[in-house]
């Protein structure tokens, strides 16, 4: 059963020029999706629409069958999705554990240890962590959230290939354990290869790769 559905979504930066046109697609729990496409194809825009950061010109984004514009975008972002960004987007004056607890005040430090951080690192400033470590914190934040969907925009874009591969493996494994739906926008072939389902954004439409 799909948890998130895109229904006839059209979006453009101007009224005349659409970047997405009547896009339809379903996403299910427990699966890892990759959305690929050329630069400027509208991948990040689509992710913004799925996250409720922006609203479509027409069409609907449905969470468990309900239009998120009617249930509220803030509510959608708070309860249904959790975002992971290319540039980590951690709050600089909080520690890794405190960043994680922004979405779940009862989150255990063990999630950070599981993701490879050391005990001494979880209570120090996030600014003292490396890029890979910061992205682990961002993923830990997404995993501990009660939201069933993780939306990730180029999560490995700033990481070297070894770290990127490790991060994707962790994200995929932990999300599966928690039966979360993971939707990753990426340019990376490795990330796409790791996905259960790959969608390609092409000619303003979202199609399964190979279709």
């Amino acid at each position, binding site marked *: 059963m799909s948890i998130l559905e895109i229904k006839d979504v059209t979006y453009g930066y101007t009224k005349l020029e659409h970047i997405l046109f009547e896009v339809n697609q379903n996403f299910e729990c427990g699966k890892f999706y990759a959305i690929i496409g050329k630069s400027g194809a509208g991948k990040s825009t689509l992710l913004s629409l799925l996250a409720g*950061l922006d609203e479509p010109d027409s069409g609907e984004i449905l969470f468990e069958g309900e239009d998120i514009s009617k249930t509220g975008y*803030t509510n959608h*972002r708070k*309860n249904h999705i959790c*975002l992971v960004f290319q540039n980590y987007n951690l*709050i600089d004056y909080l520690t890794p554990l*405190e960043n994680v607890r922004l979405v779940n005040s009862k989150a255990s430090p063990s999630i950070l240890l599981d993701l490879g951080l050391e005990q001494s690192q979880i209570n120090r400033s996030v600014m003292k962590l490396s890029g890979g470590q910061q992205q682990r914190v961002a993923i830990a934040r997404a995993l501990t959230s009660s939201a069933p969907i993780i939306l990730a925009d180029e999560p490995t874009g700033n990481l070297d290939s070894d770290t990127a591969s490790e991060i994707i493996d962790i994200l995929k494994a932990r999300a599966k354990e928690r039966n979360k739906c993971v939707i990753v926008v990426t340019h990376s072939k490795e990330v796409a290869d790791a996905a259960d389902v790959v969608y390609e954004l092409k000619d303003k439409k979202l199609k399964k790769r190979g279709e």
Partner: protein
Amino acid sequence: MFKNAFKYVTRKSAKSMILFLVVVIMSSLCLVGLSIKDATNKASNTSLGSITNSFTMEINRQVNFGTPRGAGNVKGKDIEKICSSKDIDSYVKRINSVADLVDHDIILTSNENEERLTKFKSTVMLTGVNESKKETKFVSGAYKLVEGKHLNSKDKHQILMHKDLAAKNHLKVGDKLLLRSNIYDADNEKGADETVEVTIKGLFDGHNQGGVAAAQELYENNLITDLDTAAKVYGNTEKTAVYQDATFFVKGNKDLDQVIKNLRKLDINWNAYVLVKSTSNYPALQKSISGLYSVANKMFIGSLIFAGIVVTLLLLMWMNARRKEIAILMALGISKTKIFIQFVLELCMVTIPAYIFAYFIASKTASGLGTKVLNQVSTGVAKQIAKESASNQLGGGAEVDGFNKMLTHIDAHVEPKYIVYVIIFMSIVMLVALVVATTHLLNKNCKELMNEEE
């Protein structure tokens, strides 16, 4: 929110400290401003209350030239009419007359001529009053009682003498002396030749600020007497005497202007008189009070405005640097209201200790700053008055009682209620500054903020 606000305040300690110092300094100045204002209020209301709620009935010199010597000729019955008004609390009426000291000497000046010495060798000026404590010269500080007691309305044949005149004649409080009418005095129209035995009830001090033309103008040769004594040397009684002027004190809850307006309806020949508010006889005092109010107001309002501008600029700068944080919090589903409340909490965590700190700083400095401000204002007023006097040739006018009187002391101290006012006003300013600094950010959506950040 509370925890995150606390973490921001403690971990961004440099920013918090800058904001803390700005609020401490500005709040301290606000508190000092309020305490100076209140101290000025108290000084003008309590010690100088009799000036601010009184007026004097004088002759209208444009149509009424007064006595032959040029003194006032206010009728006693007209004074009585005003006294009977329900708005009048008390009054002091004055008789100016002239008498000779019998077997005693006055203090002479170096420029006495033979003719004056023949007629006025031992002549003193008498100021008969019903209550010497309220006599203008004592109120203004020109005279100061140094020994004995003030005259009251029940006293008869009692005087207050200048201490230097008493010393010259080896007189002291309780001693008796004779006063005799002076037949050469132009105001002794009846040619009275009365002798009155008076008792010294008190001694006063005080010296002329400028030069005098005759010995009788010296403060030293002025006797403050009861009304009967001053009237009797001209062959009058309290009822038949003409008065120099009279000062009326209005009841505390009455508006002075309204009272004066009402009194003009009384059956009195108003063409012959003018009613002058006592404050107009104290230009330096008025200027020093208004100067202090002005400085106190500037300090209070200026601090609020300055704090508002500085805090707004700081917050604008710091909030712009936090647009990424705002975007992240929005992306995590935290509402704009909650984000704004976190900012408010952060401000509270910095400003509340700052208010407390400011209270202690202001408590320690208010008195000293108050005195400094008073000195500064007094110096400015003195210069201004001197300049005006010179340009208006008011050398003689400067001798008018109270002309140069100024506030000499204010007791500025910070009362706990002031911190409440400062907290209210400063908090409003802080809140406005925060709204100004965050509105343009919180009005944007999460995606716009993220795009700007990138």
